[in-house]
């Protein structure tokens, strides 16, 4: 088995607002192996971005704060690291790209400036060398007219090109881990497939581990090896892509997969999960999905399930239906959530 | 005014001797530069072209007139002319000029120069040389007094008049009639207003508009040993209190325009001294006697009884004024001291009102100047006090004001029914008060009351043409009685304006005209 490059143990990140503490990420643990692509899926507001920002040490503070847990990068706990050390890791060992290529680039600086800046910070190369390096990496991510592009501003580029620039920026220092927070959501399908291809290619060529956050299950199925499903600040299921898609254990995962219309066949009627995504922190007790869950029974409303292992390949699920003991006992004994 | 000046005069002599002693002991440390703080800038440095007092404060030190006023008074003395003769018919005046006087540009001062200046002025118009109207108009005008100005020889000038003018010599001494260098006039033309060249104790150096005017000593000045100062800087600081602050801080040495309210503070300051300028002004509450109900003498008298001049003077003149009972200041020849003022008596006022048929009072507008004047440093506030008093006898007064110039326009046009205003004398002659302000000829210009009395008119005209001073004085006393009885205005106060300077100032005698010549001024 490959080494775990990042291991997250019991991470808790909260926002302290007027309404009190909002636990956006609540006791999350998972890991990323060297060179793998890990998918993180979940509906909006479930804490995907906050998890990734926690890894980068970029949770907006105030009001946010990592209140517990460890984030180990090669065994080094990033949570405890002083800002100065953290800076040396950001963009160097762990890089990140964001959802909106339009707003993620500074509109007032040229592409070249923004690319070279990162290179200079971490490599101590001089201006000319940095520029060469920038051009090299731009070519690698498939950007045309590299020389001219360096002097252009973000608004002169199309969305796809901007996202390539973002990737170039992230890959400039050969990071071990790339965190991509919904890198293709804002793009058209044709462009999305180009970008995904590029990421896959970089992953293979440079052996960069990628943590790919998305809410599109298609994307996960297409390029990820393992996947983590989040719901309301918690991981509800984790496992290899095959396992999750073929044999989803958590009612939420299953519902999610079933809700997506498929282009290959015409579905008569879509499955839909009732109710709304809860705000983090709004459910104080029991399983957070219980309210929308068709299988929920009494225990679900009072007790918080843990991540129970399903098999030996790391497939885990947070559901009382799969505790082993309870599974047989309660099979078929459904209580509606109302 | 005379009393004050003579006092300063005596102390001056003592100071001089003291100062000479001081000079011997510490010859180096004496200040030779005077910074004079004032409220506004000069509009011109060619004095004939302006009527603004601020201009003359500077020009009297650059230019000299044929005759000048006595120190601290308005008697006529020798100036550029060392002596003069008047013909018996009072139509020919012959002046003998000082010898060896030079203009600042090095040219000689002589009879030709005098003729040149007068010809320049009399050929102008009211727009160019407004002050020349003192001589009844311009060349060719019907009332023009001067027929001819002639250079008899190098140092003798002869004036021939069309008709006698009693205050002729006093007029000649007025600051606007400073003699300028003919060469400079030719050279600068209208720009003389920025490039003054005279014969005075100080030469012009520079002018930063609305800020400073700098003069320096005229080393060739004809009065031996004078001036004492090396330079004078006239500095504009518009706010009275700011100016005083600057004085306290030592940024300036001398200032005029002192808030009466600051008097106590100044007196308690060890480093400052107060000079007083002899009163040559009057502040008054005027009625437009053509308007109802002020056409009724009883109403006017009632209001006169309702004004507490004493308190007003106390509170808003800082005591630096005396309540007025006549239209002209007491120090002036011909002042009628026998007149008894309308005393402050509200009951009497009410009675008079009742008699006039205004038992229940009435409503009126009370106009007051919004900017401080020498004779009325806090016009608005005085108006407020009068307003309150009037309220007590049942008259509701609404205070109105306007910018200074339109204010005067309104007064001249006879719009306001009751108004507060005043007058600063130009030349120390009663004519300059009584005729200028109250004669029927002056309606539309300075007779804001539109008061018209034929009796008074006859008296004033006679006084104008009679050359005998005693006879004139009697005539003026008579005139004051008429005015007191008819009461077209309530005289309020004669101010003795304060001038504050540093303690080490000596030989300084403020002049009643408001323009001080600093020839003898010096620091201890």
């Amino acid at each position: 088995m490959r080494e775990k490059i990042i291991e997250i143990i019991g991470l808790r990140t909260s926002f302290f607002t007027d309404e009190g503490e909002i636990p956006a990420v609540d006791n999350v643990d998972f890991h990323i192996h060297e060179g793998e692509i890990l998918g993180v899926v979940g509906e909006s507001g479930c804490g995907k971005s906050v998890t990734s920002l926690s890894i980068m040490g970029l949770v907006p503070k105030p009001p946010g704060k990592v209140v517990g847990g460890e984030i180990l990068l090669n065994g080094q706990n990033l949570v405890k690291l002083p800002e100065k050390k953290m800076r040396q890791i950001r963009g160097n060992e762990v890089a990140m790209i964001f959802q909106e290529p339009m707003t993620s680039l500074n509109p007032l600086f040229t592409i070249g400036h923004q690319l070279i800046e990162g290179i200079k910070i971490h490599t101590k190369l001089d201006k000319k060398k940095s520029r060469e390096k920038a051009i090299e990496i731009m070519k690698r991510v498939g950007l045309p007219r590299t020389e001219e592009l360096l002097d252009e501003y973000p608004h002169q580029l199309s969305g796809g090109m901007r996202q390539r620039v973002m990737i170039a920026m992230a890959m400039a220092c050969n990071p071990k881990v790339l965190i991509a927070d919904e890198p293709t959501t804002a793009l058209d399908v044709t462009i999305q497939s180009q970008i995904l291809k590029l990421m896959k290619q970089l992953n293979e060529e440079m052996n960069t581990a990628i943590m790919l956050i998305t809410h599109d299950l298609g994307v996960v199925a297409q390029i990820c090896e393992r996947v983590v499903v989040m719901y309301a600040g918690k991981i509800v299921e984790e496992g290899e892509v095959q396992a999750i898609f073929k044999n989803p254990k958590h009612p939420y995962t299953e519902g999610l997969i079933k809700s997506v219309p498929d282009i290959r066949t015409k579905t008569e009627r879509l499955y839909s999960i009732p109710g709304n995504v809860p705000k983090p922190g709004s459910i104080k007790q029991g399983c957070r999905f219980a309210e929308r869950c068709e299988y929920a029974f009494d225990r679900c409303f009072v007790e918080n399930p843990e991540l129970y292992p399903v098999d030996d390949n790391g497939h885990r699920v947070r559901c009382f239906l799969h505790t082993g003991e309870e599974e047989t006992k309660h099979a078929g004994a459904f209580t509606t959530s109302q | 005014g005379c009393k004050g000046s003579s006092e300063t005069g005596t102390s001056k002599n003592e100071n001089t001797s003291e100062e000479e002693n001081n000079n011997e002991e510490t010859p180096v440390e004496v200040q030779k530069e005077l910074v004079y703080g004032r409220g506004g800038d000069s509009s011109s440095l060619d004095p004939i072209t302006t009527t603004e007092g601020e201009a003359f404060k500077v020009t009297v030190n650059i230019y000299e007139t044929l005759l000048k006023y006595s120190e601290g008074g308005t008697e006529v003395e020798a100036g550029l002319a060392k002596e003069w003769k008047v013909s018996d018919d009072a139509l020919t005046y012959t002046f003998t000029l000082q010898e060896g006087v030079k203009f600042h540009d090095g040219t000689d001062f002589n009879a030709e120069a005098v003729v040149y200046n007068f010809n320049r002025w009399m050929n102008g118009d009211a727009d160019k040389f407004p002050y020349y109207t003192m001589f009844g108009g311009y060349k060719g005008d019907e009332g023009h007094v001067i027929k001819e100005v002639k250079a008899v020889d190098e140092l003798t000038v002869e004036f021939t008049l069309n008709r006698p003018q009693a205050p002729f010599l006093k007029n000649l001494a007025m600051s606007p009639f400073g003699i300028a260098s003919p060469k400079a006039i030719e050279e600068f033309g209208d720009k003389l207003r920025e490039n003054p060249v005279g014969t005075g104790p100080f030469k012009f150096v520079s002018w930063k508009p609305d800020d400073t005017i700098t003069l320096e000593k005229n080393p060739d000045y004809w009065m031996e040993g004078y001036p004492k100062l090396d330079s004078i800087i006239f500095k504009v600081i518009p706010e009275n209190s700011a100016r005083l602050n600057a004085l306290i801080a030592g940024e300036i040495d001398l200032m005029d325009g002192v808030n009466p309210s600051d008097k106590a503070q100044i007196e308690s300051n060890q480093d400052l001294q107060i000079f007083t300028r002899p009163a040559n002004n009057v502040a008054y509450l005027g009625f437009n006697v053509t308007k109802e109900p002020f056409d009724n003498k009883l109403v006017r008298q009632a209001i006169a009884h309702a004004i507490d001049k004493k308190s007003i003077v106390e509170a808003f003149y800082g005591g630096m004024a005396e309540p007025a009972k006549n239209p002209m200041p007491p120090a002036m020849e011909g002042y009628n001291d026998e007149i008894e003022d309308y005393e402050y008596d509200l009951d009497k006022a009410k009675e008079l009102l009742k008699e006039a048929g205004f038992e229940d009072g009435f409503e009126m507008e009370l106009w007051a100047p919004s900017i401080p004047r020498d004779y009325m440093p806090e016009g608005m506030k005085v108006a407020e006090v009068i307003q309150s008093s009037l309220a007590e006898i049942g008259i509701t007064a609404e205070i109105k004001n306007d910018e200074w110039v339109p204010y005067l326009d309104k007064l001249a046009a006879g719009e306001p029914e009751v108004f507060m205003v005043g007058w600063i004398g130009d030349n120390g002659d009663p004519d300059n008060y009584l005729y200028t302000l109250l004669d029927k000829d002056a309606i539309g210009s300075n007779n804001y009351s539109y008061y018209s009395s034929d009796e008074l008119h006859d008296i004033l005209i006679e006084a104008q043409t009679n050359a005998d001073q005693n006879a004139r004085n009697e005539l003026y006393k008579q005139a004051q009685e008429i005015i007191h009885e008819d009461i077209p205005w309530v005289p309020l106060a004669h101010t003795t304006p304060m001038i504050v300077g540093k303690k080490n100032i000596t030989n300084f005698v403020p002049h009643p005209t408001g323009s001080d010549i600093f020839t003898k001024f010096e620091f201890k």
Partner: protein
Amino acid sequence: MPELVKNELPIKSNVQKDEVISPWKEAWRSFRKNKLALVGTTIVLFFVFLAVFAPVIAPAGIDDKALVNRLKPPSSENWLGTDDFGRDILSRIIYGARISLWVGLLSVLGSAVVGSFLGILAGYYGRWIDTLISRVFDIMLAFPSILLAIAVVAVLGPSLQNALIAIAIINVPNFGRLIRSRVLSVKEEEYITAAKAVGMKDSRILLHHILPNSMAPIIVQGSLAIATAIIEAAALGFLGMGAQPPNPEWGKMLADSKQYLIQAPWTMIFPGLAVMLTVLGFNLMGDGLRDALDPKMKQ
């Protein structure tokens, strides 16, 4: 693994059944939580109270002159001392609150009404009306406001009423521009398109949709503009171009006593403080209103 069954139950809302939160209520809730805003409101209410009940509260009248009592320092009789007419400064400040609030409120009301009208006209109808109105605003804004106010007062003559008019005039373009840009952006909102799609008339769209949605910035700007208007009125009063005696306008009080700065500093300090406090109150309140009402801050 159990079968999933179809679930089409009505959606449960996460809001309590009887809880209706209007946007105003919501704004009020967040306003209430803003401490500074509450301080500001308290200050404003305090001065409003003074203004309304001046005759009851004030120990003396507006214009009770007593020259014997001139320039007395603060004492138990005259808490804030007396001025040069011997009038009680506290009483005059209390009555002065009437003037300042009145000028602030009325001038801002005037400029808000006129400005909003022009702004809506320009923003909604566009084309040449917009060009014309916007140009006029540009031109008016090209003058520094105090200068323009002074010029207006110079034309109309110095009086409180004219100062009020001058202040209203100089504030018109501020409101006009604000409303215009607000209308322009609201006009592009999807719910306006939706309203058009329903077949709504322009007038109804304007009155029911655009106007209510432009209110918030008007209120915020209004509150802040009252603050400025009070300062401007005081400045005009200070220059002698505003209220006339014996009106106890604060700026005029300052101007009348500046000569006593050294001799009787209380004549200067208290009216100045009154201006500052009132303005501060309105500024704090305006800030709070902005935070509460500005939709950008919400969500």
